[in-house]
């Protein structure tokens, strides 16, 4: 079995029919936030082998584990710096609202209303911009399902799991079969 690193999530961009099935599958497998965005083809983390996002993260919250670039949630501070380090925009954000447990000492002074409410109000909730990215469906892989959800659901075969060398050689063979065969028969006069 080749090493996990060479097994890549491979995209044939010209096969994408823009149906958004991958976004929906990703959303369901990752509890509501999709790590894929479909432009003219699906955009999600390429799990680069020399990733700029790792070099940029000042808390080393992004780690490469057997071929997959994983964002470790408890180290990540949602600062959003890695978002602009990724050349493909494959690191995505979702805004959520989280409840604030009122602590007696903590309060917020609001200059405008300070005269009316004695200058202190206690906000009930706050907005957080969560940072998330594709994890190569590691959870599915550990449960023994080889293919990530997006590759499993893609109706047109735009997203596949292939090894780089194998993908290139299949393209070469297809080039021969589709384009070169006819050329050859004319030159030699033999019909294949």
């Amino acid at each position: 079995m080749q090493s996990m690193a060479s097994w890549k999530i491979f995209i044939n961009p010209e096969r994408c029919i823009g149906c958004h099935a991958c976004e929906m599958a990703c959303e369901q497998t990752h509890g509501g936030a999709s790590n894929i965005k479909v432009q003219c083809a699906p955009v999600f983390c390429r799990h680069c082998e020399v990733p700029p996002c790792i070099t940029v993260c000042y808390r080393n919250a992004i780690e490469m584990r057997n071929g997959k670039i994983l964002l470790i949630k408890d180290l990540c501070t949602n600062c959003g710096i890695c978002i602009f380090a990724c050349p493909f925009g494959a690191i995505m954000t979702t805004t959520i609202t989280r409840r604030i447990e009122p602590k007696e000492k903590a309060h917020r002074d609001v200059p405008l209303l300070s005269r009316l409410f004695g200058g202190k109000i206690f906000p009930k909730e706050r907005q957080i911009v969560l940072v998330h990215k594709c994890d190569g469906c590691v959870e599915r892989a550990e449960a023994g399902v080889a293919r990530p959800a997006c590759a499993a659901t893609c109706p047109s075969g735009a997203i596949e799991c292939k090894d780089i060398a194998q993908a290139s050689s299949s393209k070469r063979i297809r080039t021969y079969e589709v384009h070169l065969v006819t050329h050859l028969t004319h030159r030699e006069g033999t019909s294949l």
Partner: protein
Amino acid sequence: MKEIFVRIDRCVGCRSCELACAVEHSRSKTLFGAITEVPRPKKRVYVEYIEHRKVPFVCRHCEDAPCAKACRTGALTQDPVTRIVTHNPDRCIGCWLCVMTCPYGMINREEERRIAVKCDRCPEREEPACVSACPTKALVFAEEQEFTKLVRQETLSKLLPGYAS
């Protein structure tokens, strides 16, 4: 501009072009030196065995190269004049967009540095290593007109005997 043309029917599948290409892209540029080097030199030309036929594949350095256009970090750049696509290892992040978009599968992966490798048409050499290594002249390095002239002559030489007798 000179191109590498392939006469598929002449290829006997000896793969000496692959060997020469790897040796040319090693530091020592000698066969014995190349074997022991790390990172192990990688070939940029590929001979495929399909059905009973042997077919060599060389990067075509396309006019508007999809690989150069797809590369987001500027590792693959195309020289506007010579149209040759060169790879800059320092900028390559191993995202493999080039492998996905190259229609002919001419880009390969180097395990050690985890970067892409592709044909740069041996800039220092006058004639690319694979062309000079090919024993049966299946690979021809010439201008378009020269090559078409060569093809005409070859076809004529096949026709002539039949015609003369």
